[in-house]
Each structure stands twice: as C-alpha cells, then as structure tokens.
C-alpha cells in the first residue's frame, strides 16, 4: 500500500467510523436508560435517508429543508417507537421487550418496503458534495472531510446537553437509578422519550451523511449499519457515549483497513465485525470504557 492510498483509506475509515459512531450513540443512550437493545434503531436510521430522498425528489424541497424535515421526522419516529413498542412492556421480562423490539424493527423495515418499494433509489447528492479534492496528491471526496466535522459538532452539542443542562442531569440520574430518580421528582417517561428522540436525531444526522457517502437506498440499508453500530457501542462499553464514539471509529477504521490491506478477505467483511463483537463479549464484556457491574442477586 503506497502512502497515498493509505491516506485515502484513512479518510474513508474516518468517515465510516463517524457514521457508525453517530448511530452507536442512539443504542448506547437507550441501553443506558432502559437496559434494552433498541433493535429498531437501524430502521429509524434508514427512514431518515428516505425522507431526504422524498423531500428533494418528490416534494422539490430545497436540500437543506428536507434534511431538517428528515431529522425532525426521524426524532419523532424514535419517540413513537418507544411509546408503542417499549413503554407498554416497561415492567415485563427483558426477553419480551426484546421480542417487541425485533417486531418493531421488522415492522418498520417491511412498511418501508410497502411504502417506498423494494427497488433501489438514488440518494440526491448536491453537486458540491460530489467534488473530489486533491491534497498533496491524495484525492479525497469532500464528504470524507465533511462527515467527521459534522459528527464532531453534533457530538459536542450532545455532550453539552448531557453534561450541562438540567435535562441531561435528569437523564444521567435515570440511567443511574430509575426508581430513585422517579422519587426525586423526575418524570421518567419524559426523560425516556427525550433520550429516544436525541438518539434518533443522531441517527438521522448519520443517515443523511450515509446517503451522501453511499447513495444507493434500499429499505434494508438499516440492517447492517444498525448491527455494526450496536457492535461499536458494545466495543466502547455500552451505556457510555464517549465509548460508543470510540467504538465506532475503531470499527470503521479496522473494517476499511483490513479490506484495504487484505483484498482477498473482502467477502468476509460482514463477519469481521461479529467476530470482534464475540471476542469483546467473551474477554471484556464491559467494553473498553465501560464499568464492570457485578451480578446482582
């Protein structure tokens, strides 16, 4: 691998890692509060790309308007999924909640097939994002710069909300101890809704940028990125936002680098993330930045 191609792969890895990180945040926030894998999160991410597509090509909205619409709709969808699929099961065994989550995921995915059709659609990319720039002889698509920057901005805002605002404090309290938080006068239901909303917003930002980088839309695109982002969240230590970001970057980078340096294992690309997941689960289930919690009797 020459140094030029190395930098190309590096920028690709950085972009993919950012996208995984943005989706992983949603998983990790929800898990932190409800101890639940939100299986429908990948599907919520998928919906955001379709909303942009329909906004631009059917309703002729300006590009930036349809992005805002997509982010709002996706955030609402996250809240609706929580209300419909998870809230009725708040006090049920975890397996029931998980089955409901899988049901919700399949429901959204198949509704998307019904409404949007199974045929691939092409994500509308403004010309500006199609340009490739040359840095020291390395040609890099401009989205590869754009994605990490936006991700960073979104992250800073999110961490500000969680660390500095009252709502953020309430979220942290609920994730630490559900019952006590309720006794302290925190409206747990509202906080859970806000968490789902924020997580889905992040997924929507990721979704829009995913479309810019991989413009081929099918209703199944949420599946693999969703699972991989979940794996990223586990690698970083689930429940920990910084961990999710770290895991996302690690996973995106290693995935791109392994394929780049060993072209004959390209077919095993999807297996790689799962092998990493199982390795982490066996040897360090709490993840890189997570805390070890003992078994409670």
């Amino acid at each position, binding site marked *: 691998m020459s140094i030029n191609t190395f930098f190309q792969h590096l920028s690709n890895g950085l972009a993919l890692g950012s996208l995984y990180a943005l989706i992983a945040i949603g998983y990790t926030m929800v898990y932190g509060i409800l101890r*639940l*894998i939100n299986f429908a999160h990948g599907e919520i991410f998928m919906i955001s790309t379709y909303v942009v597509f329909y906004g631009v090509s059917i309703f002729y909205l300006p590009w930036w308007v349809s992005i805002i619409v997509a982010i709002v709709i996706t955030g609402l969808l996250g809240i609706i999924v929580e209300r*419909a*699929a998870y809230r*009725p*099961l708040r006090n*049920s065994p*975890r*397996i*029931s909640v*998980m*089955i*409901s989550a*899988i*049901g*919700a995921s*399949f*429901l959204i995915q*198949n*509704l*998307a*097939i*019904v409404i949007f059709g*199974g045929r691939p659609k092409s994500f509308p990319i403004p010309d500006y994002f199609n340009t490739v720039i040359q840095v020291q002889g390395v040609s890099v698509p401009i989205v590869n710069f754009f994605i990490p920057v936006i991700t960073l901005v979104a992250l800073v805002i999110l961490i500000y909300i969680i660390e500095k605002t009252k709502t953020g404090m309430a979220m942290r309290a609920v994730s630490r101890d559900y019952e006590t938080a309720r006794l302290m006068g925190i409206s747990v239901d509202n906080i859970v809704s806000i968490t789902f909303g924020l997580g889905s917003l992040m997924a929507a930002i990721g979704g829009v940028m995913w479309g810019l980088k991989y413009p081929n839309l099918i*209703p199944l695109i949420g*599946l693999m990125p969703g*699972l991989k982002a*979940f*794996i990223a969240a*586990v690698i970083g230590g689930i429940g920990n936002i910084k961990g999710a970001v770290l895991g996302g970057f690690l996973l995106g980078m290693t995935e791109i680098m392994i394929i780049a340096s060993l072209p004959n294992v390209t*077919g*095993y690309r*999807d*297996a790689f993330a*799962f*092998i990493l*997941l*199982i390795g982490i*689960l*066996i040897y360090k*289930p709490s993840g890189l930045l997570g805390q070890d919690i003992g*078994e409670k*009797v």
Partner: protein
Amino acid sequence: MIDKKNIIRLGLILLVLAVLTILNNTMGKYEIRILNLAGIYIILGLSLNVINGFTGLFSLGHAGFMAIGAYTSSLLTMSVIQKESNFFVEPIVPWLANVQIGFLPALLFGGILAAVLGAMIAAPILKLTDDYLAIATLGFSEIIRVIFTNTQSLTNGALGIKGLTRYTTVHYTWGIAILTILFMFSLRKSSYGKALMAIREDQTAAEAMGINLFKHKLLAFTIGSFFAGIGGGLLAHLMGTIDPLMFRFLLTFNVLLIVVLGGIGSISGTVISAIVVTIMLEWLRFLDGVIDLGFMTIQGIPGLRMVLFSLLLMVVIIFKQNGLMGRDEITIDSLGGFFARFRKKEA
C-alpha cells in the same frame, strides 16, 4: 398392566398418522408442500423452544444451525453428477466429490454436525445473559452465513446448490415431527428438563441447588441445534434449492414468531402455532401478489405480508404475553377434563 394413558397416546398418534396418510393421498402438490412445511416448522419451533422456552436463554442464531444441517445433508445426498453440474465455478473439494449416502443418514449427520458446532459456538458465550447472548448468537449465525457465501469449493458460495433430489415427503417431516414432540415431552419430564426450567425460573437459585449451569445450558443448545439441523436438512430437500441468503435473520424471525405465538415454553402451543403460522404464511402470500376479486383486480404490495406478521408479533407480545397456551399443555388429562365438561353441559 398397560397404562390407559399410553394406549390413548398411541391411539392419538395413529389417528394423526391416518389423517396424514389420507391428506397425503388426496391433496394437491401445493397443499402437500404446505403440509410438509408445517411439519418442518414444528421441528424448528420445538428446537428453538428448548433454548428459549425451557431454559429461558434467548438465542437468535437458529438460521445458522439450520444452514449447517441443510448444507451438510445436501452435500451428502447429492450424486456425483449433481455435484459436477452445481460446482462449475470451482470444483468441489475432493473428499466430498464422490460421497453419496442415503437421505436419513444424511439428515442425521446434518443434525449431529449442527449439534457439535452449536455446542462449540455456545460454550464460550453461555455466561452472557439475555440480550448479550441474543446478539452473540445472531452474530454467529451471520458469521456462518458469510463463511458459506465465501467457501466456493465447499458450499458453492452465493450461487447455492440447485437441483437437489426432493426426498422430503410427509412421512419424513411428520414422522420426525412426532418423534420430536415425544422427545420434548419426555425431556421435560426428565431431571434434565426440570433442571433447565429451574434455570429459567431463577438462575442463581438453580445454581445454589447444585445444578451445573454451564452443562445444562450447553445441553439445551446442543439439543436445539441438533433439531434445527434436522429441520434445515428437511427444508433443503423440500425446496430442492438452497443458498446462503435463505438463512438470513428472517428465517429465525419466523421460527421465533411461532414460539412466541404458541406460548414460550409450551410444546403443544408451539405445535399448534407452527401449523397455523405456516398455513397463514402461505395463504397470505396473495397480499404480496395480485389480488383477483373476479370483477376487479387489486395490485398486491410486496412486503405487506411481513408487515402483518410483525404487527401480529408485537400485538401478541404487548397484549397477551403468554401467547396461545402460556406454559400450559394440551394433555390427555386436560382433554379428558374438557370432554367431561362438555358432556356435563349437554346433560
């Protein structure tokens, strides 16, 4: 003295066999295919029920074990000529090229290999709980699928295997299904089954009572994957074609749906819901195609069928968590009670 219940049981089985034979001789090709599918889904549902229902572990890796069974048995029943015509991209590995054994031994072999691999996969991840175990098993089943897609000389890769001889008949599917049902009932009555259910109720308490968690969970996984492998083999020889895409998460979803609708942990519930779901899955196929009402046709919408099924799954899990049967069973005693009540009403 011969137990009266055993005679009734035997009578019931003979009755089912008689009904099946009649159906097998009178129904058309398509209906027989659905009958076969129902038998296969009974086996699959029961196999997932051992892991998810009896033991309370949450496995999402069923499609992977089915794939192992399907591929193993297919590669073993294929003739040399069938292998040559399938493996045109890359020739099949030499040690498999000239092997051909009968259908039943091949099925058994597929089941055993699935069980061995299932045990090997489960062993390192059994200490995980709930959702972590689910996601790890899902991961393994995806890994199996990716491996099968890429081992061209062993599985023919993404092209899959076509033109398998359709050995699967109603005798095989329902014969094995009945054996599976009997096995499940006796497993649950045995000390092993009781240990599994103790783990489901309270893992810590079960461990304190001296139940070896690892050994019993491994047992559940091994049994589950064995029957999943058998089911996969039957499915392969019913379809005549297999490819790695068949064994996606969707297949696990279908089996999970059966177990949840029937009542997680109930054998008779799983059996009933396997039959109902299979028939519904086929019958509702019209939703995806063109609906002909005679005077007008409505263009069906692809995906609508699965929308209905995922809605059904969510509605059941939210409003009637116990499914059809909860953990109850239809036994000879309960049937007797039912008829007794019926007779009283008439009198």
